[in-house]
């Protein structure tokens, strides 16, 4: 893994509002804003293996900025109760739908952003094949350059 370049002060950034449903992702809103962006998570090089969900800005296929999307893709939900023995628990969602946003810096050489995570299988199958969760892949990529319309998805 390697550390991303830190950016000092406000920078031009893009906020993407992404709607998902099943294995479909679409950008519903793309706004430019100038602000300080959160620091990048450590960047993964070829051979680095992690499991989870994140947004990754790439330049020529190489990761240049990464932001974790912990608990945001809605395959299960956290439920809070008044039961002191089970204040928090999780329940799987069969057909996850929802909206999340990610804000990333505008980098000169960046050309795409990928949403990375485990395959969007049905939870029953995932539970049976727990070991498969180790595998993560691009769930969707969006171009960051050009005149791509909002909502474009690959």
């Amino acid at each position, binding site marked *: 893994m390697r550390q991303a370049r830190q950016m000092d002060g406000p920078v031009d950034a893009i906020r993407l509002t992404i709607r998902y449903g099943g294995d479909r992702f679409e950008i519903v809103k793309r706004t430019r804003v*100038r602000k300080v962006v959160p620091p990048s998570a450590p960047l993964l090089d070829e051979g680095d293996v992690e*499991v*989870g969900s994140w947004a990754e800005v790439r330049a020529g296929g190489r990761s240049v900025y990464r932001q*974790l999307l912990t*608990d945001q893709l809605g395959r299960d*939900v956290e439920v809070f109760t008044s039961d002191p023995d089970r204040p*928090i628990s999780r329940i799987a969602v069969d057909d996850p739908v929802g*909206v999340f*946003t990610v804000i990333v810096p505008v980098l000169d050489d960046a050309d795409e952003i990928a949403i990375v995570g485990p395959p969007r299988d049905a939870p029953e199958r995932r*539970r049976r094949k727990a070991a498969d969760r180790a595998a993560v892949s691009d769930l969707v990529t969006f171009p960051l350059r050009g005149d791509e319309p909002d909502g474009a998805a690959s």
Partner: protein
Amino acid sequence: MSAADGTVIGVTRIEDRGPASSKWNLVIVSEGYTAAQLPQFHQHCQDFLDHLYGLAPFDERDVQCAINVHRLDVASNESTADDPAVCGDGDIPSATTVATYFDATFCGNGTIRRLLTVDQTLVIDTVDDHVPEWDQILVIVNSTLYGGAGGTVATTSISGTWENIAVHELGHSAFGLADEYEYYAGCGVDTDRNNHPAGEPSEPNVTLNNDPNTIKWRTLVTDSPMRTSNNADCSMCDPTANPFTAATVGAFEGAHYYHCDAYRPGWDCMMRNFGAFCGVCRQVIRDTLAPFNTPSTLNLMTPTLSFNDVPEGVQTARAVVFDVASCVDETFTIAAGPTVLSGPAGTAFATPLGLQVVSAPATGTRQARLWVTYTGTADGDSATGELTVRHDRTGQTWTIPIVANTVRRPTVAVVLVLDKSGSMSADAGDGRTREQVLRDSAQPFVNVIQADNGIGVVAFDHDATEVMPIAPVGDLNFGVGRSTARSAVANHTHNPAGFTAIGDGIEMARTMLNGATSYDHRAMVVLTDGFDTDHLTVDEVAPGVIDQRVFAIGLGRPNEVKATALTTLANGTGGSMVVTGTIDVDDQFRLAKYYLQILAGVVNADIVTDPDSEILPGQEHRVPIDLTETDIDADVVLLPALPGLIDFALETPSGQVITPGVAAGSGIQFAQAQRSSQYRVVLPAFVGGRSEGPGQWHALMRLDEKKWDKRWSWLREYGIPIESFANAQGVKYTVGAYSFTNLRMRATATQSSFVPGATVTLRAVLTEYGIPIDNRAAVRVEVVRPDTTTAVIQLAEIEPGVFEATSTAAMQGVYRYRFIGEGRTLRWRQFRREYLATVGVWVGGDRPPDVPGDGTPGGGSTDWCELITCLRRSGALSDELVERWRKQGVDIDALHKCLCRRR
């Protein structure tokens, strides 16, 4: 069930640590609160922040400094949230449907009642509109049912430990923290959560690696060897109680929804069981927010404290100034001193506002000031000293040298030269005689003149009399010279047989002033209502002989007073001439204002503002007065038409109200006389434990209803209701502010001739510390023509700080010009200066002045003028006879004036 079901009220930044572009912005949004319930939402926001900032690391300064919190008030038509009748998890819903703006609903996915969702897209769009730089949204739903959901738009109801739920969700969405609990559905419920599958989790607070040398949080491990725990039975949650201290960071088995093979850094954590954040989570939060926290900066802006040219006996304050950029309280303390290192006996430096100042958090850079005072000792003295200031949070210290010297404040001897000729008994135009107007108008001059100056009084008709020799003015209330001058003015009466020899008055004043050698400057103020009818005339005063400044006031129309000669004389000495024109009831303060303006000119002060108004019973008027860092002191003077009815107070820039009772304790002087009330403020003043200096002050005037009622109670005897009378009129007043200042406006109205059609050049020069005010100000002139029509003339800045325009005085009479200069000081503070000037033109105004004879038949002239002069002066025409003729329609004095004027 949508945006139609409510209204977006607006956003309030309730934690402001700096520009939104530089900070991490949390937006808290209301949902399910009606407009009437929004105060409850505000309280819920505060409850959440109190809870958050009580948790480490959010209780740390650097973390708090990174965060702005915005509260978005959205009023829904109905309260709470939908709770559908059918939900798949067997929980018993309340079957509620309500109209709320973001359509909050339990059972958001149709199967889990505790899943509380909102229209996320609408939330994001709404927040985008108000805080485009947002980083995290928390929607608080006004329901006491348990519920919530994570994500960049996190939701929580207000049930039970909802604040913890919200913080936990922020841990996920804002800081990328994983759940540290070791079950999925619950301990004893799960059957497939024994061993974590392969693959290192991406989150920083859970791991499959428990090697102390390579574990991802190895730099945060608290003990060596690293504390660890293992779950003895991977088919269940580890039931062991925490054997370590709460702050221990190690590797404890059971995390990320699995009983074994996954490790968490703390035994308890907000991300496990709502405990305090573990050490790793704290550091992740700190690291995530670090780019949003601009480091504090402290810069000493006054490496030396200089008290330059402080007048004798005058206390002057200077501040040690720090420029501070910080989002938390920064405290500066005088750790040593101020100490006198050299100087004459009696030298002292003091700290009127104490030894400490706390600079409150604010956006951008602000200044912290520690005040030190020095009182001028004797002319020519100098002194040195030092003080040491400590910044309490860091312990940094600065030792600041002090230098000071004392000078004498320039003093002025001024002689009031007052006309007492017979014509001063005539009506001035507003129902008062001219001498009454004079008495009313000259009194404020005597009341306001500064204590260290000198004052004398001369009265003249055909001869001049020294009514009061020049004497020090003295205290604002009890000065002997001031009291004597007040009496001299109050007792000024006309001589029914007196003629007018203005030159005699000027000569006597000149002689008196020549003897007043202890004063730095000398000036006279000449008031007359007519032409010379006797020797010496103005024209006979040798122009080169008058070496004092002459200020002249012509009481009447320009063709009735000696405007031509007086203007020439005044202009030649650096003074000025004003002509009142006819005084009327709507402008009864005109002469008094001229007097006060002349006083300002005599003592080198400037007029800050000078409006007239009328106040009704029960009303309160607030007149703004802009004082700047260039102003040394200021007199705020109220002249009421009826004394004793208007309550007069000052309001400082911070809103403190100074009444006469409060003034004495604040270092501000208050004085009240028959015709004026006055506050004298040396800047900065220290009121209520704080310094009050540059900024917008206000003069507050209130007409007391009880006093008003008592004043007019006699009307009742005639059956006239006071109320109807009071509704028809109030008390006229004028309030002026006169500042001894380093920001000055010198204005003149110069006429090309004294006949109608004359060109008038209007010119104003604005300087700040003697330097022209370049492109920072504008000057306009409000003109009142002889026929009372008005106009506004904008002066052009023809060179830096010099403003000019020309106008034509087309009609006979007095043109009044009110110069108003407004702009910004070098420190960009708003200022205002005013000046009144007049020009008089009349048919025949340019003819050579008339010269009366010597008062004896055959003594230079044999016409009727000399004859009547002789008859009156010799007593051949007695006062009794003159009065009898006057009643019969023959005004011998008026006839005499006519004959002497135009021979």
